[in-house]
Structure formats: structure tokens, C-alpha cells
């Protein structure tokens, strides 16, 4: 009996290691969402010269958990005119795609544990960059379906706006990333990070970095590009009709997408887990992961900073900006990068 069990374990070690890594990353992502909400509310409070949540627990740390409990116990309302199946499917699609996207992102140098080489990523995919774009582009469906299924004019408008915005900025995102692919000559995210061991891509491709980050903010529907949920015009857009946990799932998706986008910027432009001048400070196994997390944390703070600084831009200006400024700049950057590569 024991023999068959150990035999099975050693035969399927790859599968088991993969499953454990997937579970750890899914749980870590989901549990980082309340912390990120807390961070955002605290920082926003400071930016707007007020205190932010500070009553529940030390520094208000228990506030997000109180909120989560409230959302879980709220009554789930589905209005009669809604398409029930699509109404339930939409938030699930948003969270599912958000978590799966992160599975291709490497967040540390590989290390050896019990004689097994373990890379801190669920899957080291040969075309990792394309995988991330593919799955994150599927996330738009959640928002479009939420708009369609609610059977509400505001929701429909929000869903349509959101899909138009995400399609427009996805092009810029992809073209900016192509600049990085030209420089490093690989679609594999681990190889892209290892290629930046000496100089991070932000120095070689500064324009691509700015374009990618701006398009990333628009892709995650964050302020100042949070048009789909514009409160004044659309009474919160596609999630008008959602309550309780289904409502919270849209926000979970948005915050996980924020983390994923920050991690992508870190991998593509900031050199991943390379610490450069501070390499001597980094402990061996856990160190690269801490370096990576610190870079992601910094970018997340920039996301929050942007939200509390800029007013929301008008819809026609958003489209003009996306198609007439960002896209030509991205094509120009691509051409310049290709020119230097050939040289």
C-alpha cells in the first residue's frame, strides 16, 4: 500500500509540485486583495489629507476583513429581467481570468528544494508573454457579459464602453511589449528577465515603458481611465445590479489585475528579481522574491497615486488619446527598436 503511494508520488512529482504551486499562488493572490484595498484606502486618505480607516484593529488593518464578512452575508439580489446564467457567469469569468493570468509570471530565481529544482512560477511557458495577453484579453468577456446580462441601460453602456476601451488600449499594450521582445529576442518571461541581468529594459526602452504602464492602467479600468464605472454618468456602470459577493468579485478581479499588471511591468521593464546595485544585500532563496515583491509594491503605490491625483478623462478624449497618440507612438517605438536591432 505504502509502496504504491510512494511510487505514484514519485511518478507524478511534476504534477504534484505544479498543483501545490498553483494553490499557493491562487491563495496568495486572493488574500492579497483585502490588504491591497486597505493599502489603497489608507494611502488615498493621506493623499487627500484625511485619516482613512483607522478604527477597526491596529492601523485599521481589520477593516477589509470586516468588509469581506459584510459582503459575504449580504442578500444576493438578482432582478427578474436578468439572464440568470450569464449574470452568475460574468463575475466568475473576471476572477478566473485574473488568477490564471498570473500563473505564467515568474516572480523569483529558481532554487533547489529536496533535490528538486523549483521555479517560482506555476508554468514556465515558451510563449509566456502571449499567454498573459491571451488570458487577460478573455477577461473583457466578464465585463461585457455583466453589461449584457443585467438588462439595464446603464450596465449595457458601461459594458460597451469598457470593451471598446480595453480593445483600444490592448493594441498599445501589445505593441509596447513587442519593443521588449525585439530587445531580448524571446517570448519566454524567464528569459526576458535573465536578459536584463545587467541593464533593465526601462533604460533601453523608456518610451515603451511609459506606453505600457499607461495602457496597463487603462486595461485594468483604474482611474483616470475608469470610464466603465463613471459614477456621475453611469451610476457605476456594469456592476450597478450586482450585490454582495458577486459585486466584490468584480473588485477582486480588478485588484488582482492590478497586481498582475504591476508584475508584468516588473518582468518586462524593471528587470524582475534582479536587484542591480543592491545585489549584495539579497539573501539566496527568498531574496529574489522579496526584490520582485518590492518592485510590484512600488508600482501598486503608483497606481493608487494616479487614482488620487488625476480626474477621470472624458470618453471621446480617452478614445482620441488611445488611437491618435498612444498607438502611433507605440508603432514609432517599435520601428526605432527594430532599426537598432538590425543595426
Amino acid at each position, binding site marked *: 500500500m505504502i509502496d504504491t503511494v510512494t511510487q505514484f508520488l514519485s511518478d507524478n512529482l511534476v504534477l504534484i509540485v505544479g498543483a501545490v504551486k498553483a494553490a499557493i499562488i491562487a491563495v496568495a493572490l486572493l488574500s492579497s486583495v483585502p490588504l491591497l484595498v486597505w493599502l489603497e484606502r489608507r494611502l488615498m486618505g493621506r493623499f487627500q489629507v484625511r485619516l482613512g480607516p483607522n478604527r477597526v484593529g491596529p492601523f485599521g488593518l481589520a477593516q477589509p476583513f470586516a468588509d469581506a464578512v459584510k459582503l459575504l452575508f449580504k442578500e444576493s439580489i438578482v432582478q427578474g429581467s436578468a*439572464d440568470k446564467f*450569464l449574470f452568475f457567469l460574468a463575475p466568475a469569468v473576471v476572477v478566473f481570468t485574473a488568477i490564471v493570468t498570473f500563473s505564467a509570471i515568474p516572480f523569483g530565481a529558481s532554487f533547489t528544494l529536496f533535490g528538486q529544482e523549483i521555479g517560482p512560477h506555476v508554468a514556465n*511557458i*515558451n*510563449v509566456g508573454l*502571449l*499567454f498573459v*495577453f*491571451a*488570458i487577460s*484579453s*478573455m477577461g*473583457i*468577456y466578464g465585463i*461585457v*457579459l455583466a*453589461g*449584457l446580462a443585467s438588462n439595464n441601460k446603464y450596465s*449595457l453602456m458601461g*459594458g*460597451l464602453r469598457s*470593451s*471598446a476601451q480595453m*480593445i483600444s488600449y490592448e493594441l498599445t499594450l501589445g505593441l509596447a511589449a513587442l519593443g521588449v521582445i525585439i530587445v531580448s529576442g524571446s*517570448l519566454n518571461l524567464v528569459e526576458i528577465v535573465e536578459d536584463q541581468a545587467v541593464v533593465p529594459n526601462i533604460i533601453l526602452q523608456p518610451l515603451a515603458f511609459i506606453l505600457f504602464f499607461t495602457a496597463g492602467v487603462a486595461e485594468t479600468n483604474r482611474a483616470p481611465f475608469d470610464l466603465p464605472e463613471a459614477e456621475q454618468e453611469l451610476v457605476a456602470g456594469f456592476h450597478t445590479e450586482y450585490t454582495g459577493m458577486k459585486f466584490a468579485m468584480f473588485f477582486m478581479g480588478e485588484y488582482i489585475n492590478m497586481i498582475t499588471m504591476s508584475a508584468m511591468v516588473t518582468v518586462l521593464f524593471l528587470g524582475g528579481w534582479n536587484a542591480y546595485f543592491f545585489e549584495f544585500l539579497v539573501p539566496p532563496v527568498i531574496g529574489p522574491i522579496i526584490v520582485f515583491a518590492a518592485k510590484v509594491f512600488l508600482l501598486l503605490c503608483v497606481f493608487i497615486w494616479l487614482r488620487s491625483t488625476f480626474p477621470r478623462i472624458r470618453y471621446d478624449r480617452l478614445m482620441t488619446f488611445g488611437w491618435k497618440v498612444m498607438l502611433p507612438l507605440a508603432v514609432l517605438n517599435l520601428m526605432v527598436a527594430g532599426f537598432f536591432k538590425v543595426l
Partner: protein
Amino acid sequence: MFDLAYQTIVVVIGITAILASFGVILCASPIYSALYLIGNMICLALLFLLYNAEFIAAVQIIVYAGAVMILFLFIIALLGAKKEEKTSSWEKPAAFAFVPVLFGELLMALTADAGRPALGQFTEELIASVGNAQAVGMELFSRHLIPFELASILLLAATVGVICLAKFPAKIGGRRTK
């Protein structure tokens, strides 16, 4: 053992793809038809993945499931998703007659050249050594360069045509109308 599991997965995904394509034509609501089509495209991407074509699988999802189908849903949302009413027309029996003809042609194509499997120069080992995207790129930009460029010019012409149709008002009787 492993091979059996692999074949089972291939067959299950293939059957799911066929069922999803039936869903596309049998659903009354256009939203559900579009969703079944997305499901079908994801199944096709999974099949590409199972046949070691990671690059094509990713591109399949980005282009078809990600971009094309989003535009489908966009149009459905704009025009209003009303359920179709069932009407009888002469097209139905014609379609039913057409399906066996297509299947017959497919079978003929399969049996005519059974001795020679359609294999390219890229084996599994070669793809693993040069990389998936590189293999597609080398084929596309060397042997199939002219068809590739022709297709891109065709797409560009179509894009310009769409902008011309949408942007400039049509001339009726030699006059510009607003």
C-alpha cells in the same frame, strides 16, 4: 498508459468543440450563440496546444477568442439581443442536403491520400530545439513570404475600405449627402 490518457483528452476536446459548434447554430439567443463560438475557439486552441503548437494556440486565443468575438458581442449588444423566431424557409432542406455532401468530400479527402501523412519538416524535437514562435516565423518569412505579404496587403485594403465607407457619405446621383 500515458498515450491512452493523451488520446482520451484529444477526443474529449474534439467532441466538446463539435458540440459547441452545434450550440452556435441551434441556439435561439445570439448571445449564447456567440458564447458557444468562443467555447469552440478555445477548444481549437487546446487542440493546437496538445499538438505542440503553443504559439498558434496563443495566437488563436488572442485573435479569435479575444479580439474577433469581442467585436461580435459588441455588435450584439449594440443591436439588442433579441431571440430569433422560428420560421420555415427553403434554406433548411437545402442545408440538410448539403451537410452529407460536405462529409462525403471530407471522407474522400481522407481516404484518397491515406498512405502519405501530411507531415512538414518540423518534428517535435526540432521545434523543441528552435522554439515554437521561431519555427512559425521561419516558415512564414521564408517559404510563405509572398502569400503572407499578399494577405497583409488585402487586410490593409479592407481596413482602408471600411474607413472610407464609414467616414465619407455616399454619393447619390453625383451629390454628396449628409
